[in-house]
């Protein structure tokens, strides 16, 4: 043991925590909290950060308490959670497929989740536009879509015993287009009369989030993240390549299956409530890798924080730029993300 790391023991489980990673993660956490406080204060009623904190602990004026805790807090928490989930999902995929271009939206996982979400809403919405099924089941629905599409793309890209990054992306693009087509068909068939609302949701929006939704998505994301930490070591092995991982005694196929399952369930959870926020799953892991390097134990929490901050920031911009109109967060993330994707494309070709 060297002085760069220190052990943490929780009963039978123990981790070696890298000091540098620990500092960076703490710093990012503080930054994320500051960003969220700023975001809580921004809107038609501007509230100073001090008053925001006061309102969060219930000491502000009645108006401020209401605006901060009931209106703004849920959407900001959702931004953070959805961004984090998509970023972790992307980090896993990039490690698993060893492809810098992989991300849940590019290979169609988000599209699949959107499809089953729309189907769920279409089946379980009655004439008076209320859900006949508990919203708690919604993440399960989008999870199923994400998993089905994720594995479909994975297997269709499989040829001669391997998956080339480009084939994966191409097939992902194709399958995503099919999922989109069916989604619009369901939207026309189903009782979601306001196609406009659905369109906005599909772009990725955190507008109108309530605490109910947070209570559903938070355990989902935290639960999967916990399992993910146990698997992070195996992901490190995966990155070394199939042969090496096998030689090191790993059950490669089983681990791949598990990791893909974790990645898709994270993406599914995010899409269920925030829609298809584009390119976060692509960008966040890259930024995180620049900050912390590519060991997954640290990469995953850093990606999560970066991803969450990207979406919170996009949400701030979306609310401020054209006030009182709101631009869905997904628009901003794609505006930055698509050029970034092109940049990566050329970098990976040099």
């Amino acid at each position: 043991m060297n002085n760069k790391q220190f052990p943490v023991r929780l009963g039978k489980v123990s981790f070696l925590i890298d000091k540098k990673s620990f500092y960076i993660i703490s710093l990012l956490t503080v930054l994320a909290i500051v960003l969220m406080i700023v975001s809580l204060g921004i809107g038609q009623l501007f509230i100073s950060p001090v008053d925001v904190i006061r309102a969060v602990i219930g000491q502000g004026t009645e108006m401020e308490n209401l605006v901060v805790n009931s209106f703004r807090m849920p959407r900001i928490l959702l931004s953070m959670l959805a961004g984090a989930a998509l970023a972790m999902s992307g980090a896993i995929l990039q490690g698993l497929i060893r492809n810098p271009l992989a991300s849940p939206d590019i290979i169609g996982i988000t599209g699949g989740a959107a499809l089953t979400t729309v189907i769920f809403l279409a089946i379980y919405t009655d004439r008076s536009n209320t859900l006949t099924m508990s919203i708690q089941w919604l993440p399960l629905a989008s999870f199923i879509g994400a998993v089905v599409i994720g594995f479909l793309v994975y297997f269709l890209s499989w040829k001669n015993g391997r998956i080339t990054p480009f084939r994966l992306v191409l097939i992902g693009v194709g399958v995503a287009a099919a999922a989109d087509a069916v989604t619009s068909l369901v939207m026309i068939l189903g009782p979601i009369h306001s196609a406009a609302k659905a369109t906005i949701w599909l772009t990725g929006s955190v507008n109108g989030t309530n605490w109910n939704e947070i209570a559903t998505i938070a355990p989902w994301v935290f639960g999967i993240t916990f399992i993910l930490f146990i698997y992070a070591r195996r992901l490190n092995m995966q990155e070394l390549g199939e042969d090496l991982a096998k030689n090191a005694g790993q059950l490669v196929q089983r681990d791949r299956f598990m990791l893909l399952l974790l990645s898709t369930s994270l993406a599914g959870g995010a899409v269920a409530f925030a829609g298809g926020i584009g390119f976060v799953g692509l960008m966040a892991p890259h930024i995180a890798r620049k900050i912390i390097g590519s060991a997954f134990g640290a990469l995953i929490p850093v990606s999560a924080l970066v991803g969450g901050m990207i979406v919170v920031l996009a949400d701030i911009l979306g609310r401020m730029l054209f006030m009182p109109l709101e631009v869905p967060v997904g628009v901003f993330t794609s505006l930055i993300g698509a050029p970034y994707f092109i940049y990566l494309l050329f970098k990976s070709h040099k």
Partner: protein
Amino acid sequence: MLKSNALKGLGLIIGLVIVLILMWASVLYGYTDITSQMIIDSFTNFDESNEHYIIQDNRIPRSLIAAAVGASLAIAGAIMQGLTNNPLASPTIFGVNAGASFFVVFGVTFLGITSLQSFAWLAFAGAAVASVTVYLLGSLGSDGLTPIKITLAGAAIAALFSSMTQGMLAMNETALEQVLFWLTGSVQGRSLEILMSVLPYLIVGWFVALLLGKHLNVLVMGEELAKGLGQKTYLIKLAGALAVVLLSGGAVAIAGPIGFIGIVIPHIARWFAGISYSWVIPYSAIIGAMLLLLADIAARYVIYPQEAPVGVMIALVGVPFFIYIARRGINE
């Protein structure tokens, strides 16, 4: 594959007859029962009955538009595949449709444009901007234009344009209502005027495409070789790009973004006509028109009595085909 030129010519004529039959069928079938006699009567002896109005204002424009749009998109795809030497090239994959949609929605949202003529110009501008951007991005880097790079650049540009389109729509609900019907990609409910205002550009595109055929045959052998044989490759590329912009921009202006015709049809055309673009382009036109007419008729019945947007129908047929081509492999 049809071997001799005579057979290929015969094939084209048979194809043309099938297109005409399908156009007739497109007028006949649908929610309202129409008979062939009624169609003839509506021309010779218009009696202001519901059926006659439906024939003249709805079914006939729809049938003509489906044929024109299907043919144009398929030709645009064939030219793009020739120019970039990429079996996956098509207006959807390269973001040309998304670019055209973005410009149209931008015009409606910010410039308050409502006239059909300006719709067309905006669509052309968008198609041009998107195709030039994707082409340039695809040619950047030391290894020049590679099929993979241009395909991925196209996918990224398409994502960029469509998210900006959705952003504008999200901010402006009246614009959304105006263009939502158009954005789903459909040949239903379009008036004959829209077709007429765009038709001249489409016709120019068709002619350029037919003239390009034999030059594309040389170009696909490689740019160096083509230059060596005395071809002015930049002229061919410019003419090809012009045809692509006119055809896909025009098609989008009429019907909205309809995907996968441009990618699937040229491959089917090659199956009949071999690899020579002199034949692939006219065959693409015929088969493209057939596919869109068929898909549009099918769209009236799959969720009867409602209608499915034809873009959805085409995507469902096109995607498996796309995956098949992607799996068979393109040169990486």
